[in-house]
């Protein structure tokens, strides 16, 4: 159980980068971008094939992110210059990427078991520090029987993901970032303030997909294989993270919203792990669980809000009545 939760947090932090990308399009740009299902795999495929051809893992990961950026830009161009509906542009790109990903990989699955991935390199350095023994010692003294094999992935990924969060926060407050947000908020207004909304949409969708692809590249290395189908339903997982995060942690400012998205991604993984421990459910039910989760996260806050409002009104009425009786 503890190990399963640990694994959930570990992969949750990596998936959080993808969720931040989905936040950029879905929330900031108000652009429901389905490219994600394809670009996630593109990131993994490019990183895997690069590593197998001798590119250093960090470089390979960056190449993966770059490939995602290009894919996103193309979606943006199809939408803005081709004047095709946002949803359809994303779907078209997603379908196109499926074939492209197969071409990149050459076969449906690539194994990285014999490659020195980013995480294996980290583990190599980390092993010398003896930090694992320290953390596991704490866990064991707390009564844990089985302990995680390494802590380095969690620790490094927390730093990487937070760094991306802070850069995103900063970017969205720059002059370009403000114009990007306004493009999602009121296009007419920002165009009358000399912003080229087409370029901003292309840039925004590109950046979003570069994060998605980066996440895909890291997940590929984490699970030591790339599969052409590993992106299916990724957009819904990203949405689930964004929506769960916002429901639990709020979205008052950008900084809160982005940390909420990261939290949402981790919580999503934990919920999935817990759900799979129910005997009745198996791994094939994951997509159903995700869909139900998104619906719950969307509906529950509204019901709670409506209840609160009703209570407030009733209280106000009661107050007025009692005052009237008193007089």
């Amino acid at each position, binding site marked *: 159980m503890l190990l399963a939760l640990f694994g959930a947090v570990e992969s949750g932090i990596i998936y959080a980068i993808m969720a931040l990308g989905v936040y950029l399009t879905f929330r900031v740009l108000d652009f429901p971008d389905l490219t994600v299902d394809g670009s996630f795999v593109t990131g993994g495929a490019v990183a895997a094939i690069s590593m197998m051809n001798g590119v250093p893992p960090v470089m390979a990961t960056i190449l993966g992110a770059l490939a995602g950026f290009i894919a996103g830009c193309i979606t943006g161009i199809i939408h803005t210059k081709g004047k095709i509906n946002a949803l359809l542009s994303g779907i078209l790109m997603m379908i196109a990427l499926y074939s492209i990903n197969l071409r990149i990989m050459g076969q449906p699955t690539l194994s990285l078991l014999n490659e020195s991935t980013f995480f294996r390199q980290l583990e190599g350095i980390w092993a010398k520090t003896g930090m694992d023994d320290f953390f596991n010692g704490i866990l064991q003294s707390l009564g844990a029987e089985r302990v995680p094999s390494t802590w380095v992935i969690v620790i490094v990924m927390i730093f990487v993901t937070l760094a991306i969060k802070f850069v995103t926060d900063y970017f969205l407050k720059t*002059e370009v970032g*403000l114009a990007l947000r306004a493009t999602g908020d*009121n296009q007419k207004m920002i165009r009358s*303030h*000399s912003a080229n909304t087409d370029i901003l949409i292309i840039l925004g969708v590109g950046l979003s997909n570069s994060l998605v692809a980066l996440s895909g590249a890291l997940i590929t290395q984490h699970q030591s294989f790339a599969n052409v189908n590993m992106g299916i339903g990724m957009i819904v997982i990203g949405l689930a993270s964004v929506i769960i995060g916002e429901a639990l942690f709020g979205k008052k400012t950008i900084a809160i919203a982005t940390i909420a998205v990261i939290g949402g991604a981790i919580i999503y993984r934990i919920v999935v792990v817990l759900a799979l421990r129910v005997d009745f459910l198996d791994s094939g039910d994951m997509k159903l669980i995700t869909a139900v989760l998104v619906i719950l996260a969307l509906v529950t806050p509204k019901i709670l809000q409506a209840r609160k409002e009703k209570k407030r009104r009733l209280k106000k009425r009661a107050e007025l009545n009692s005052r009237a009786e008193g007089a």
Partner: protein
Amino acid sequence: MLNLKDISMTFNEGTPDEKKALQQVQLELKQGDFVTVIGSNGAGKSTLMNVISGNLTPDVGDVLIDDKNVTFYPEYKRSRMIGRVFQDPMAGTAPSMTIEENLAMAFSRNKKRTLKLGVTKSRKDYFREYLTSLNLGLEDRLNAKVGLLSGGERQALSLLMATFTEPKILLLDEHTAALDPSRAELITKITEDVVKKFNLTTLMVTHNMQQALDLGNRLIMMDKGQIILDIRGEKKQDLTIEDLLQEFRRIRGEQFESDRAVLG
């Protein structure tokens, strides 16, 4: 400053819905001119505004700003030189962003947008000082989301955002029409002040004849895509609403009579 040469614009050409929105319109504005535009619905006022702002490209004719031909500049490129306030108070601001962020976006209008922070300490002071001039108390609410402001407050903010980079041309598209009388008066007052302060070349569309008479140094009346009346300077000062109606009847008299015949 602004020069419109022989502008014609037809919508749905060659169909039964054909509409000649502008017919060989000539208009020249000098630096500091404040022109009010009146005319009935469908007279071509909005089309004229959209042609100037770059939202629409005319079928024929040229738009010159400062002797530079900008006819084929897209809207975003032209809006470096043009400030615009729309009729809808919701249209001129980004509701989910704060007052200071909205102002920062307007501030970058005539510059290249960079990766520097949009809202800085010094800009904040500048914004605050600026907002104080509105007397709406907005200077204390820099961090409030614009969506929380009332229509009048949003329109005042839009006006400020459209003008404080001192654009070459200011376009006001019935910008007080959606407000209650007292708010409309306030916005009119602010408009007058700000145009005077920066000596802005302004084109204002209005349905309020009194407003058209009170403001500006020149008045044009449009009908069926043409400018049918152009009154400036002292002559405008003596003008009354009755004069305008009479003038309209005189120019379109023949049309008027035939309409009456049909309706009668």
